[in-house]
């Protein structure tokens, strides 16, 4: 589908805002690529992981 339009339920879009995720960057695993709440949570966890990794690199144990 053309860029800029994300197909996701209102609840998933709201969750993305709550978790600080840009929903346009989330890969959708639902039918036809619909973005699910699960996809949003997964994306949120992976960004947190990245941040944690970066932090790890700055302050190695």
């Amino acid at each position, binding site marked *: *589908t*053309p*860029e800029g*339009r994300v*197909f*996701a*339920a*209102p609840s998933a*879009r*709201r969750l993305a*805002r*709550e978790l600080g995720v840009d929903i346009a960057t989330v890969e959708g695993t*639902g*039918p*036809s*690529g*619909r*973005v699910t709440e699960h996809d949003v949570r997964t994306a949120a966890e992976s960004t947190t992981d990245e941040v944690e990794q970066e932090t790890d690199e700055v302050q190695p144990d």
Partner: protein
Amino acid sequence: MVVGDISTGTDVLVIGAGPGGYVAAIRAGQLGLDVTLVEKDAYGGTCLNYGCIPSKAMITASDLAYDANNAEDMGIYTKLDVNYGEMVEWKDGVVSQLTGGVEKLCKANGVSLMEGRAEFADDKSVRVVHGGEGQGSETVEFEQAIISTGSRAIEVPGFEFDGEHILSSREALALDDVPESIVIVGAGYIGMELAGVFAKIGSDVTVIEMLDSVLPGYEDDLARPVKKKADELGIDFHFGQAAKEWEESGDGITVMTENEDGEVSEFGAEKALVAVGRQPVTDTLELENAGIETDEKGFIQTDDRARTEKEHIFAIGDVAGEPMLAHKASKEGQVAAEVIAGEPSALDYQAMPAAVFTDPEIGTVGMTEEEAESQGFEPVVGKFPFQASGRALTTGHAEGFVRIVADEPSGFVLGAQIVGPEASELIAELGLAIEMGATLEDLAATVHTHPTLSEAVMECAENALGHAIHTLNR
């Protein structure tokens, strides 16, 4: 004697109690905020007092009278007598029940109500001028403000509303008597809705429109059934005519119009209703004191949180731009209140539905085929005529169709246009479909009750997929 200027404070100040403002205030109250709602005229704003509600009440009542009077084919014979004054009284009863409800709901949710007209003193306070001689004014300081002062009817130069000969929709909905004849300037949705009301209860209606068709802005095939029915009702249309001036003549008036070539025509009638659009009420607010600018049309620019250029001042509803619709105002009101309360809300809806309560009704949501194409989708379109709907035929109202626009590769529903019976209600399911990211297959697979008009939505999706049951497929 002028009462001395007193000064109060509130966390959230909402200016204007229309469907934008009162919803914002209630939601803010629910979220535990200290909120004050200022209204200069009537709770419920244009929508409840002079717009959506009164017009729909009059439409329903006149439809009932007309339908019963035109049901000989069903074996129903009537001798009908409509008392317009009583119809208006009934409508007023509905309005006051609703506006009373708004007031109660505000109070129940902890909203402080204040009567008066607000003007910005600076970006942290307003002056509220109380109505009536000697009622004084007071200064209200706020942490955050929501501007929801709505819109007013545009006046055509030379056609200033006088409430007697030249009416806005507001006065037209409050007449004591059916005018014997009426000239309606403007064939937009308000003009067409009211043209139907008057024609159905016996006025001679003439509609003057500058453009070349009814309901400009709507696709031709949506407007066509409305025009056809209006013709049947005996409404007399004149397109490509600009209203220039009017004069009293006998008991009524004569309206002079001019076409492109400068040719003048004259139309006589008891009264004229001018419905050529609405403009935001932002010129009486001293917005410049708050440091907020408006665009050339008077609208206030806002972002996806309903914020103006001032972080702590929000603008919602008709003042915040097109489409000027009550439910857009309410949605923005909710979001503004939630953002103020720190919730992760935003105006991120995928589609804004709209309805026109003409005969037949029109309901639209999301993209047209053309819009889908221009946005890079590969649209596939399904269509289902109400002539093929069992339920439509049993109601005697089977004109029109349902159309669904979807993206062919993904199947996602992008938009829908309906003209026909209950179009304003049927569009709701399609709005949900768009918000949910539903596909044509999802709509087609959902069991719909028989016999209902909503089956047409399912069959329309099936038609787009090439396998509707009750119509031949594309």
